[in-house]
């Protein structure tokens, strides 16, 4: 079963990650990524650039309207994701709990939809 682990940041976590404590946090993340790669659970993941670089696009009356900044002002913003293929939602939750952002901001675990069909009975 594949899950997306959504990594949330807030203003403070950005400072943390790029401040003096950043090195230790980076190492923590690298160790977890290496562990997930070794277990074969890691499917992919990326970190996103600062939310200040976000552009939001809405098409209204066939006209795209582009605005700078995220859709909604919020204390926490989407900062990156991991995709894992693991045996249970519980396992995905365990992985999320070990990602440093879970301590400072939050993580979300969401099952990924697939194109497989169910039983035909």
């Amino acid at each position, binding site marked *: *079963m*594949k899950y997306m682990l959504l990594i949330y940041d807030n203003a403070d976590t950005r400072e943390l990650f790029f401040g003096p404590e950043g090195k230790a946090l980076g190492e923590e993340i690298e160790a977890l990524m290496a562990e997930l*790669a*070794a*277990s*074969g*659970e*890691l*499917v*992919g993941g990326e970190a996103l650039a600062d939310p200040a670089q976000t552009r939001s696009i809405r098409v209204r009356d066939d006209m795209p309207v582009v605005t700078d900044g995220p859709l909604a002002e919020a204390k926490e913003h989407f900062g990156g994701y991991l995709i894992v*293929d693991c*045996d249970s939602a519980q396992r995905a939750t365990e992985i999320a709990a070990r990602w440093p952002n879970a301590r400072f901001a939050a993580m979300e675990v969401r*099952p*990924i*939809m*697939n*194109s*497989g*069909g*169910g*039983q*035909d*009975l």
Partner: protein
Amino acid sequence: MTQPGVQDVEGLLRRLAPQALGVLVRRYGQFDACEDAVQEALLAAVGQWQNHGIPEHPRSWLVAVATRRLIDEIRADRARRAREDAVADLEERCQPAPDEPEPSEHDDTLTLLVLCCHPALTPASQIALTLRAVGGLTTAEVASAFLVPERAMAQRISRAKRMIKASGMRFELPPEGERADRLRAVRQVMYLMFNEGYTASSGSQLQRVELAAEAIRLTRMLHRLAPADGETAGLLALMLLTHARRAARVSADGALIMIADQDRSLWDQRAITEGLALVEHALASAAIGPYQLQAAIAAVHAEAPSAEGTDWRQILALYGLLERIAPNPMFTLNRAVAIAMVHGPRAGLAELAKIEGDERLAGHHRIEAVRAHMLELAGDRPGAAAAYRAAAQLTTSLPERRYLESRAAVM
């Protein structure tokens, strides 16, 4: 020599893969390293045999090439200088020989299956390792069947092999007393592999026929190795009878079609005939078991001339038996469906109420889908719509979600 087709070569290699691996492991031990070596030999064979024809003794060719790889691997491992003697010994024994009769070839394949379905491994790892070591698939093929990157699958397979090594399990058939348990574990892996292919929990198409077909091929092999085993015959029958419906369960635009609405003329009659014969023979000659009973239920559907002509009383009796010998909330849920079909939707809903609190079904979309169907039959359209919507929210399958939303919309 004429050039063989790609499918000829691949089919032959998949048949020979477990035999070659069996020979290597018996000669040199080290399942882990031998499995890697055979994998490399298979990859080498694909190119060579297609261009230069299939060699006269294909299995010996594979064994010789795999042995050479094994030696190279041991040589390259400088940390193990002490093994130089072992290398010299291996080299002496690796001369290609004609296909000598291997009296224990069947035992080898069975031993490999038991090893790959080691209880210490997770089901996903058991399936992956079985597909590669016994099924002769490449890592890339296994990875694509599960839609994960090749390196992730390679990691899973080598991790699984390390766990088997650490468990100290030897390359020999389990003692008579443990054999039944081991065979049960192998059947479970085949069943999961089939379901993975049939329902494709992570596929880009509704059905990845390849994986289901591979599960059938391996189960057929297991059935040949243990022909008197009624549950193995039952499992093969269940797969054949289910797979027979594959062309009818998806519409041209990719939508899911429930069994009641399927065009039965699209069902594969050859697979049905074979499945029926298998299950009838097993039920008449072997101790009864859950796979035989599930196959018997699939047989009732297969023999019904139409959805209306389905013998639901017999299905209900079979689910009752199944629930007694192998209690499982999914069987109870399916039995509730049969009760609704025999005694009416209200009786089915009453049965459903008994299992609602079962933790093993908590959050499963199927209980809501079944409830929705029963409410629809009972004429409670708003209730059915709400249950269809609840089921649609719970499923992670896109075609299923589309189906459930479309039912909710017409209520």
